[in-house]
């Protein structure tokens, strides 16, 4: 089942008056349960594309259909609402809230959806248990390793059962063993819970383990 579709997507940045064509006419389709990796050299437009698909940025032209609705015409606050309800994000630098513990960071996601405190604590702890990070519950980000932080970040991204999780180079700051473990975790979530993942990466390991690969070059799909 298709959940995301891009048509003739273009993104032109303005860099000191010089137009930069970061995405040049991309068509793609993502189905429920896909595990897609967007690969390509630096500057090929991976982050730009991911931002467009994640409703964080608007294309210069072209259309994006999310669950059959055109999101390119939506207002900022509507996009924010879509991200809140339907999308999860994982960042290269983990980006947990530094003053909150692992458990609170995960709860925070649910707080944004106004889930009552008791329910969110229970749900967060259950999911942490499932992902084997329960012992991190009361640790602050600066007390955790990069790999541990990224696991918490993955938990945070999936706890609200999003339709799609988008991750821009999630393993770039991790050593290859830790990266491998993290990938296993996401693969498990993908197969167990049928969560849809879209990554960008130029990590060979990530690319090898992709179920669907999109290779970008100069803002265009190569394969």
């Amino acid at each position, binding site marked *: 089942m298709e959940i995301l579709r891009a048509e003739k997507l273009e993104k032109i940045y303005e860099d000191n008056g010089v137009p930069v064509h970061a995405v040049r006419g991309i068509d793609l389709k993502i189905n429920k349960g896909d595990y897609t990796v967007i690969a390509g050299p630096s500057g090929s437009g991976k982050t730009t594309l991911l*931002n467009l698909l*994640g409703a*964080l*940025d608007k294309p210069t032209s072209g259309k994006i259909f999310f669950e059959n609705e055109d999101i390119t015409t939506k207002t900022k*606050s509507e996009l*924010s*609402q*879509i*991200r*809140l*309800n339907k*999308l999860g*994000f994982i*960042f290269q630098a983990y*980006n947990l*809230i*530094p*003053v*909150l513990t692992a458990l*609170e960071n995960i*709860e*925070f*996601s649910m*707080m*944004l959806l106004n889930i009552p*405190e008791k329910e969110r604590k229970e749900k967060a702890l259950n999911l942490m248990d499932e992902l084997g990070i329960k012992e991190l519950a009361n640790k602050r980000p600066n007390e955790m390793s990069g790999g541990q932080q990224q696991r918490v970040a993955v938990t945070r991204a999936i706890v609200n059962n999003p339709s799609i999780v988008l991750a821009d180079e999630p393993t770039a700051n991790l050593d290859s063993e830790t990266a491998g473990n993290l990938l296993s975790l996401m693969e498990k979530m993908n197969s167990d819970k049928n969560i849809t993942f879209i990554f960008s990466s130029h990590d060979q390991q990530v690319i090898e383990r992709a179920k669907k690969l999109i290779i970008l070059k100069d803002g265009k799909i190569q394969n």
Partner: protein
Amino acid sequence: MLWKLAWRNIWRNKRRSLIVLVSIVIGMAALIFFDGFSNGMMQQMLSNQISSNISHIQIHKKGFNDNKIIKNILPDRQKVEQILKENAQVKFFSERVITFGLLSSASSSSGIYLYGIKPGAEEKISKIKTSIVEGNYLSDAKRDILIGKKLAEKLNVGLGDKVVAMANTPDGSIGSDVFRVTGIFETFSSEFDRSTIYISEQTAQNMLGIDNETLEFAMIIEDFKKVDEVKANLQLKLGDEYEVLSYKDLLPMIIFSMDIYQESMFIFNLIIGLALIFGIINTMLMSVFERINEFGVLMAMGMKNSRLFFMIVLEAFIIGIVGTIVGLIVGILIHIPLSHSGIDFSLFAEGLESFGVGAIIYPILSLGNLISMIFLIPFISVAGALYPAYRAIKLEPVYAINYV
């Protein structure tokens, strides 16, 4: 959870938050001190005046207050006395013969206000008896006179020394009499002590040839706050021939300075508020700029702008509340001992005494000002956070996430 997050965010940069907090605490404590001090000074000025000889309400023949001449005797002394006796609000009253005259000793003489009083009744409406520093209080004896300490010095007389008082009588001749100094008084006001003498009313009446007549009724009422009401009531009963004046009419300068003070307190609040608001704007802007990445992530997660805005304002609000509470405690801890011991201004006492205050000032806090202070700082903190919070929600998520 937002409260918890806001609280922890405040303590991320301990030093910066402490600086703001300390400045709020100092501002608050300074406001409390300043308010207590000025208010205390004002109240003291007022109560000194009231208890020296102004009392709460005075009754004269119309025009007396502007022209204190002996001709302005009360039209009907008995009528006034009757009305005062019948009024339940009037607690104590007494009558006074008042005129301007001259007091001479063997070596010198000086212009004076001559008060002819009923010693027993006067004692209840003024502090003259307790102001005696040498000798005794007035009796009804014919030769008794009380004079101020400064006047005694000027005339170079002591207890038992002979003085001569002279004043105009209503028919234009001069009445005079000889006295022996019975007592010397010293009040908060050196001006008063330089220019006032007391003799018994009876003696004054004889000397001035106005038997059974008087010039003033002065009174203390039960409820000080009802002074306007009592005044109006008396005026109504007495009619146009009389003037009924409250301490407010009699001390316009003090009342005026109390009004001015309220306004200056407002300006003082404003100045401290302005100083604090820039500190808060600056702190909150710094703290927002340091967290641009974090806000980007929150926005990506779909946090509503209104919520983000609220979170930032909440941080400032908490700083304001904590600062207010600590400032209040510090301010009151400073205030309480001072309000008991007073602040000694002996060094400047000469100046203050002629100003009618006294050398030791006891700070008094006014509830109204205290309440407005309690609201002021949290309000200012929130106001100071509005712009930084606005800047935060105007960020573009993509820009914010990638901001370095």
